[in-house]
């Protein structure tokens, strides 16, 4: 079954507003990552947070990780029209079948200028 699941499925905001996306997962993980995908640049890595970290920042991005709740959030502050894209969380885990990176279905963010 799919490991990571994002919500909301779609989000529409005005430029300048903040956008928050959430991700839940089911099993123990090594890392959790967030990726962005748009038609222009393909799939791009945004940030990686290790299982022993709780919060990480990168520019306008803030990621939190709560391993007790098996959830993560991605906050984009002061959004721009160029942030319009699909955002995916991905979890790295080692199970009985070996190593896997599992992507969620994604949140489609639309930032209106």
């Amino acid at each position, binding site marked *: 079954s799919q490991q990571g699941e994002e919500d909301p499925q779609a989000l529409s905001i005005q430029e300048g507003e903040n956008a928050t996306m959430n991700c839940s997962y089911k099993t123990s993980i090594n*890392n959790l990552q967030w990726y962005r995908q748009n038609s222009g640049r393909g799939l791009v890595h945004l940030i*990686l947070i290790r299982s022993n970290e709780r919060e990480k920042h990168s520019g306008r991005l803030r990621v939190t990780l709560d391993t007790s709740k098996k959830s993560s959030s991605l906050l984009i502050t002061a959004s721009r029209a160029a942030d319009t894209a699909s955002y995916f969380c991905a979890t*790295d885990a080692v199970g009985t079948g*070996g190593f896997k*990176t*599992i992507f969620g279905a994604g949140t489609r963010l639309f930032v209106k200028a």
Partner: protein
Amino acid sequence: GAGVSQSPSNKVTEKGKDVELRCDPISGHTALYWYRQRLGQGLEFLIYFQGNSAPDKSGLPSDRFSAERTGESVSTLTIQRTQQEDSAVYLCASSLSAGGPYNEQFFGPGTRLTVL
């Protein structure tokens, strides 16, 4: 430096034909991954290669799918007797290693496969 490259960028084939997709990872990356993405959906993990270790094939959708990698270089994903349900974008990624703190994956542009 060069990123991950994939070829062909687009492939249209007839049902029942075999196709071969190619991935050139970033030089020095020991881990290589294949994913499938259907329209409007997330990425489905297919297989990964780590160094010279034997890959775990349990993520491949059926026995029509196979993948190979020569050392730490080029990988090919082969789909035999293609079906319409195989239509998707196939993405390849590479990383310095698998599962550790350096597991940022760099993705190629993908191969869009259409099975008629």
